[in-house]
């Protein structure tokens, strides 16, 4: 009897369907949801044979907040702050994608100054997101000091975002029709100082990592998946560029005037963790170039579209003109109606293809907002990437995906 009970308990530990535990010699390790290297709340169920992973199953949903449901209960302009919370490391990319989708439904023309400002700030967001990725990825693998350097530059960027929007992270700076506020006086100063100093800072990170033998041994040849499989699994962004596919939505389907900027798509063919590192580091340099072009070529003019029924009037006009006051009241109390229809807007976020599918039924609230986060697609490749490899490689592989759980679970 006692023997049978013991056997039953052993079987309870295993997810193995075929054969009793004693023959399979595997154990199940529950990694997360509070493991530091999962950067959020990702749970991984790992079936191990010694140190080799036989089967891996990611379990997501711990950060599900029902943002898509909440969007259906808000006016179109009230959804913008929710989009910050989706991918909280690339909030401006999310603001931009949502605004572009609704602007297409409304048929709004965005003035060039707002478009350039959007390009500049989303590129700075890309740098800030990549910096956080590089710092945490390096610290996961054991390179402590890179983390400190990365956060030094990230702090400068967060101060720039604060200068523009009043918020370090939850910026909501892009609104339907343009920008939330006029850019602050003298904004060029801090942005220029950052962009002047940044290339040498990237050299510093590279000095610490690129030729570091420990870094190379930990990352080269790890987490490789063939390109066709990556595409089939729904992976986008730097991960497929590191596997040899030069596909970037900023080039292939330009939005917000990206076609007017001069930049390159970094590509590697190895497809391992090291190649992803190289691609992202090069992307930071390219993004700094784009941001500089936007800053130097910033057109004069309005920062919001001429659409009094959609864009809040400025404060002065609201206090002096009857018409503006009525529009202000109606936008705040009733929202604005958006023509019926549906739009899928894709942009290149720091992590890959970010898509907003917005369905309008002609009322002032969206009928459906679906957010396709790039991390959702990228994380699906986890199991394929780590099965058959050592448990120490799990940390390096997970870090190279650069997922944000808010983006996965929404």
């Amino acid at each position, binding site marked *: 009897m006692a023997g049978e009970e013991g056997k039953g308990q052993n079987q309870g530990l295993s997810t193995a369907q075929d054969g009793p535990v004693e023959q399979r010699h595997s154990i199940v390790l529950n990694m997360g949801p509070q493991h530091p290297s999962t950067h959020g709340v990702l749970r991984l169920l790992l079936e191990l044979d010694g140190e080799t992973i036989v089967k891996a199953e990611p379990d*997501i949903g711990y950060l599900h907040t029902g943002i898509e449901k909440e969007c259906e209960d808000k006016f179109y302009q009230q959804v913008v702050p929710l989009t910050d919370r989706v991918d909280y490391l690339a909030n401006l990319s999310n603001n931009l994608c949502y605004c572009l989708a609704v602007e297409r439904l409304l048929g709004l023309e965005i003035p060039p100054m707002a478009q350039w400002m959007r390009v500049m700030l989303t590129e700075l967001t890309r740098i800030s997101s990549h910096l956080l990725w590089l710092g945490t990825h390096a610290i996961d693998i054991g390179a402590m000091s890179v983390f400190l350097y990365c956060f030094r530059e990230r702090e400068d960027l967060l101060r720039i975002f604060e200068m523009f929007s009043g918020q370090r992270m939850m910026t909501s700076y892009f609104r339907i029709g343009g920008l939330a506020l006029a850019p602050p006086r003298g904004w060029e100063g801090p942005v220029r100082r950052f962009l002047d100093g940044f290339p040498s800072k990237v050299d510093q990170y590279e000095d610490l990592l690129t030729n570091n033998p420990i870094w190379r041994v930990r990352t080269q040849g790890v987490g490789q998946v063939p390109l066709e499989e990556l*595409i089939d*699994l*729904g992976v986008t962004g730097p991960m497929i560029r590191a596997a040899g596919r030069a596909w970037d939505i900023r080039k*292939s*389907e330009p939005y917000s005037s990206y076609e007017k900027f001069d930049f390159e798509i970094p590509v590697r063919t190895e497809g391992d963790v090291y190649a992803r590192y190289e691609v992202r580091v090069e992307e930071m340099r390219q993004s700094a170039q784009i941001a500089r072009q936007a800053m130097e070529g910033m057109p004069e003019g309005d920062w919001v579209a001429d659409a009094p029924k959609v864009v809040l009037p400025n404060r002065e006009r609201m206090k002096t003109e009857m018409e503006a006051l009525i529009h202000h009241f109606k936008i705040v109390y009733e929202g604005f109606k958006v023509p019926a229809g549906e*739009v899928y807007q894709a942009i290149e976020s720091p992590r890959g*293809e970010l898509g907003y599918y917005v369905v309008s039924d002609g009322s002032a609230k969206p009928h459906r907002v679906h957010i396709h986060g790039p991390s959702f697609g990228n994380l699906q490749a986890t199991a394929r990437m780590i099965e058959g490899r050592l448990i120490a490689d799990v940390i390096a592989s997970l870090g190279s995906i650069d997922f944000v759980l808010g983006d996965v679970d*929404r």
Partner: protein
Amino acid sequence: MHPDTPADVPATSLIEAAEPGSVLGSWEAFGERTIEIDAARIGAVCRVLKAEGRFDRLADLTAADWHPREPRFEVVYHLHSMDLNRRLRVKCRLGGGAAELDSVTSVWRSADWHEREVFDLFGIVFRGHPNLKRIMMPEDWDGHPLRKDYPIHGYRYSYKDE
């Protein structure tokens, strides 16, 4: 934004050639082409689109609920061809009574989690899915939150009761 391509017409004719009668409608709005497909044939149509239409990527899969209108559900597939730089929206309508259609996980592996999400949040069943269980909500959750008849505060708690 989305290139105006004559190949939009071939997409429907490709399907019509392989699966006659499965296209229920095709229109273009906001620069995006949408094709409506008979829900019973979605698996076969997706296979044709991937093999012959070169839509190598399922960019997104989701649903929308039009309750109380019937058929209430729309399952929406956003396909993307990297080679041709083209996007296509494929749509199926499903009634609330038997919200079931074929899984496309055998066509694109990325459909796996997307279909689980739609199953979880809308209660639409995908036949032939290898692991159809809840993904966002806890396993023992009641109801499907993104349905329009599901209250925004959930069934368990409402501040009006206080």
